């Protein structure tokens, strides 16, 4: 209490009152800490000082000014007591105190302390009361009266009441919208004028009630400086936290929801982002790392920027981690941009912290942050520059209760799409600028320079007639929407206007339908569902649009379904176009002919600091002296080779159905791709031309047999999986691929049916031996032949393989042996049965 008086006085410029209160506080503080024995004398002095304060207050009330004069005497007394404190307090002092105090010093002192408090309380209360009675008092001068006036103007209201008010206002807004819709278009309606007024009042009421729910974002930040301080001590880093825009207000519901994600992100920035002192010094950065939090309004949203001047995101670490955790595959990574790779940190179960510290890396990763932010209709974006730091931008709506939404129609049903996720609208029709095109049955739209994947609302929601073919002649609208950095288009039949809607949760039994975030009643009284673009994107990705690499990898457990493979089509010499599975291709390059050198009679080129052998895709092909040639680069384990081709034609996603088994070396077979007969090249043939030992370092397998037997191919290297797929298909097998022993077991358990299994031995996790043992234990797979592939083919290896349950054991480098081993094993099986 004394402290409060002191503080307020200092603030308001009342030096006398402040001085007395200050010293009194010192003394009381020492009592509290036990530094000073409470003695009757000291209590007396304190009481005196209280009297002094009271009288000063009395003056204040009367004159609104501090009285002239000095309180030196009382201050000196208080000082004397305060200074007598400390460890020097002698036994004598204490004894004297005890004597002077009555028989029960404890009680006495307690009482005195209480008295002091009570007196003080009373004094201030009096002052307040009297201050309140004089409304004319100038607030600047009269400290306490002003305070009490403000106190009278604030009331505490339960959150429940506010929530209820908000609900009622929401209903009012709805009713208003309904009325407006009814009167719209009737100019001479007698209700028009009062309705207009009602409309204005409602809007203001809505804003007012919304304001009551607003709280400064600083509230969610309050704990952060402390967290950063603790962190900097724990991690031995120097970190400065800058907070800008603490006063930015947002709905308290939203505030609560972003509090934890924000804290998590700030921790992350300090822990992963800011480098250690040595690293910073080495990089020539200031010793003190800075984490900046910035909040500002933009449109109907609040942006919260969190940036640090740390190391930025370590792309290599992210890539490695993403592959280790199986978030993406090697081949997917190849095709990803840096931006996309950075986004991987939002993937579930992802954490780049090398080890679990007490600070972060506990598995509650950025995916939780992202989920939480998206739950409230917000987005998180990330940009990071290596060595310069990272910036996260969280964009969240101001309030959850009322949102602006675009009303659209699909198959005669209306839906609302929150305006925040709508970027633009595009009209598409056969004769218009934009047309919906089909790419492997998935609709896409060419929008400026990009190919935008589309989701048909009717199809995702399974409403309206079953349209097998998408009718791209008729007029449709595309709502271009963005979720994080992923843009996609939603195909709808019609677009109406935007409307302010009140989001209401859907009934519990429909909560697991991912594509709705709620429902609402429109102005005309009809109910529409509110679409959740996140859910739509997910649903769309599942049903149609997948990246090329996805398509290749996802065919692992398609039992009989038509799998598509992304193929790179090129021409080489005359004759049919040729194709190679895209997953095998590392990149496409154009090189100057004059850069091609001859080494050991073979053409090579210097490529990324290494000599890369070049192989002609056509016999008798010659290299010109001038100009450029296109090469297709295959690469694995730091070794690359280039296949010289005439022209890269296209990348198509098609069902790979090899039809003719070609005799020509280097051709695995022919298939119809994009309506044309195309030679599928046998990448393995060219690889062995470039490096004769290509297959000895890694696992491979090949197949042969007549009938279409189902074959499960297990290998951890996507390169070899994809290499073998066309070969085995050409040999007549129906190939299913698995990237690991565990995946293979999962496929087997989920009811896949296979005549033969071909497995690599060396794999992370469940290896080939484990897989074979597991199969032998399972009744269904007890009899199925399993062929092992290994680079090691000594007698001992054979023995081990047979012990584990392998039917046969072949060398990776010997393709013919594999094919014959496969057919032999199957024949044996046939005989046995």
């Amino acid at each position, binding site marked *: 209490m004394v402290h409060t008086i002191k503080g307020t006085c200092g603030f308001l410029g009342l030096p006398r009152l402040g001085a007395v209160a200050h010293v009194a506080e010192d003394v009381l503080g020492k009592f509290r800490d036990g530094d000073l024995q409470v003695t009757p004398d000291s209590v007396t002095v304190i009481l005196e000082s209280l009297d002094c304060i009271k009288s000063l207050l009395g003056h204040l009330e009367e004159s609104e000014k501090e009285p002239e004069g000095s309180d030196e005497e009382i201050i000196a007394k208080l000082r004397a007591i305060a200074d007598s404190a400390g460890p020097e307090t002698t036994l004598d002092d204490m004894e004297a105190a005890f004597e002077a105090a009555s028989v029960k010093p404890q009680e006495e002192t307690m009482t005195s302390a209480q008295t002091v408090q009570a007196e003080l309380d009373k004094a201030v209360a009096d002052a307040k009361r009297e201050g309140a009675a004089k409304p004319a008092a100038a607030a600047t001068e009269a400290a306490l009266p002003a305070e009490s006036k403000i106190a009278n103007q604030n009331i505490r209201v339960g959150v429940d009441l506010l929530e209820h008010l908000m609900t009622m206002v929401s209903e009012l807004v*709805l009713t208003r919208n309904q009325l407006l819709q009814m009167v719209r278009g009737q100019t001479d309606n007698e209700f028009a004028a009062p309705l207009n007024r009602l409309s204005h009042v409602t809007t203001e009421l809505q804003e007012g009630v919304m304001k009551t729910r607003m709280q400064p974002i600083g509230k969610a930040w309050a704990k952060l400086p402390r967290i950063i301080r603790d962190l900097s001590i724990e991690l031995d880093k120097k970190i400065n936290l800058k907070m800008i825009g603490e006063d930015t207000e947002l709905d308290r519901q939203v505030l609560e929801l972003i509090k934890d994600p924000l804290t998590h992100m700030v921790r992350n920035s300090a822990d992963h982002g800011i480098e250690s002192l040595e690293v910073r010094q080495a990089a020539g950065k200031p010793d003190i790392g800075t984490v900046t939090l910035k909040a500002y309004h933009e449109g109907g949203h609040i942006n919260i920027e969190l940036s640090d001047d740390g190391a930025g995101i370590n792309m290599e670490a992210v890539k490695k981690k993403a592959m280790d955790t199986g978030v993406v595959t090697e081949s997917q990574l190849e095709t990803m941009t840096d931006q996309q790779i950075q986004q991987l940190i939002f993937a579930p179960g992802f954490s780049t912290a090398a080890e679990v510290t007490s600070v972060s890396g506990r598995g509650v990763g950025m995916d939780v942050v992202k989920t939480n932010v998206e739950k409230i209709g917000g987005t998180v974006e990330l940009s990071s520059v290596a060595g310069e730091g990272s910036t996260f931008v969280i964009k969240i709506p101001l309030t959850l209760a009322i949102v602006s939404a675009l009303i659209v129609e699909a198959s005669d049903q209306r839906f609302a799409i929150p305006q925040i996720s709508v970027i633009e609208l595009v009209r598409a029709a056969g004769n218009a600028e934009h047309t919906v095109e089909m790419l492997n049955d998935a609709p896409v739209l060419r929008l400026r320079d990009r190919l935008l994947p589309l989701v048909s609302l009717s199809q995702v*929601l399974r409403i309206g007639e079953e349209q097998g073919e998408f009718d791209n002649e008729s007029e449709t609208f595309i709502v271009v929407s963005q979720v994080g950095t992923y843009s996609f288009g939603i195909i709808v039949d019609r677009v109406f206007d935007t409307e302010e809607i009140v989001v209401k949760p859907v009934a519990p039994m*429909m909560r697991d*339908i991912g594509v709705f975030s709620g429902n609402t*009643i429109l102005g005309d009284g*009809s109910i529409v569902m509110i679409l959740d673009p996140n859910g739509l994107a997910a649903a769309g990705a599942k049903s149609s649009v997948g990246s090329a690499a996805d398509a290749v990898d996802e065919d692992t457990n398609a039992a009989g379904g038509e799998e598509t493979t992304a193929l790179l089509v090129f021409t080489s010499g005359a004759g049919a176009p040729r194709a190679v599975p895209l997953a095998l291709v590392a990149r496409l390059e154009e090189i100057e002919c004059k850069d091609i050198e001859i080494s050991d009679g073979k053409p090579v080129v210097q490529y990324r600091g290494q000599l890369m052998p070049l192989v002609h895709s056509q016999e008798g092909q010659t290299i010109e002296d001038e100009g450029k040639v296109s090469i297709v680069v295959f690469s694995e384990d730091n070794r690359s080779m280039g296949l010289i081709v005439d022209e890269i034609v296209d990348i198509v996603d098609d069902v790979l159905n090899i039809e003719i088994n070609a005799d020509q070396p280097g051709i695995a077979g022919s298939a119809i791709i994009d309506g044309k007969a195309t030679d599928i090249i046998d990448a393995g043939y060219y690889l062995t031309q470039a490096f004769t030992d290509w297959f000895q370092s890694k696992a491979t397998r090949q197949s042969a047999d007549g009938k279409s037997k189902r074959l499960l191919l297990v290998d951890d290297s996507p390169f070899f999986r994809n290499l073998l797929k066309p070969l085995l298909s050409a040999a007549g097998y129906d190939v299913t691929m698995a990237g690991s022993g565990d995946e293979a077991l999962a496929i087997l358990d989920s009811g896949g049916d296979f005549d033969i299994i071909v497995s690599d031995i060396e794999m992370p996790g469940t290896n080939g031996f484990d897989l074979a043992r597991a199969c032998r234990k399972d009744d269904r797979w007890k009899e199925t032949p399993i062929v092992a592939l290994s680079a090691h083919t000594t007698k001992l290896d054979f023995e081990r393989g047979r012990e584990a349950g392998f039917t046969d054991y072949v060398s990776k480098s010997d393709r013919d042996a594999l094919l014959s081993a496969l057919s032999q094993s199957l024949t044996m099986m046939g005989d046995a049965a």
Partner: protein
Amino acid sequence: MSTSNKSGGGDKIAEGKVGDQLEYVTMTINGQWFGIPVLSVQDVLGPQKIAMIPLAPPEVAGSLNLRGRIVTAIDPRMRLGLPPRDENETVMSVVVEHLGELYSLLIDQVGEVLKLPSSRFEQNPASLDARWRDISTGLYRLDDRLLIVMDIERLLNFDKSIAA
């Protein structure tokens, strides 16, 4: 809603029990009479405009707007394994509350409110279709018909229905 002024025994007021008398709103679905405790019924509505909800469970017929509140419409026919309603037939709604949410049960006709002594309440026969037993607590043998008492809680408990 009439309330009997009988004293005592009001331990199950919420289920429409007054003394040893229970009050039920009666209704028909596909010719069969059903009863719902009168106090759990919030509203009885005539034909309403029902908005379809895509991807919803089959029991969910859609949603309707009841004075600004969104009410989920449930078609008990699906739960009972009855044929879908003819398009021309009239649909009435009985609105009930369950865990703070409003649901409207789509029925064919609403009958009178019956006051029945609890002593006449009987267990369902074991031979009753499991789907019917699942949503009903028992029945009354009335003079001219059987009245099956519908258990709202069980009817609206969807997890169970999916598991069953």
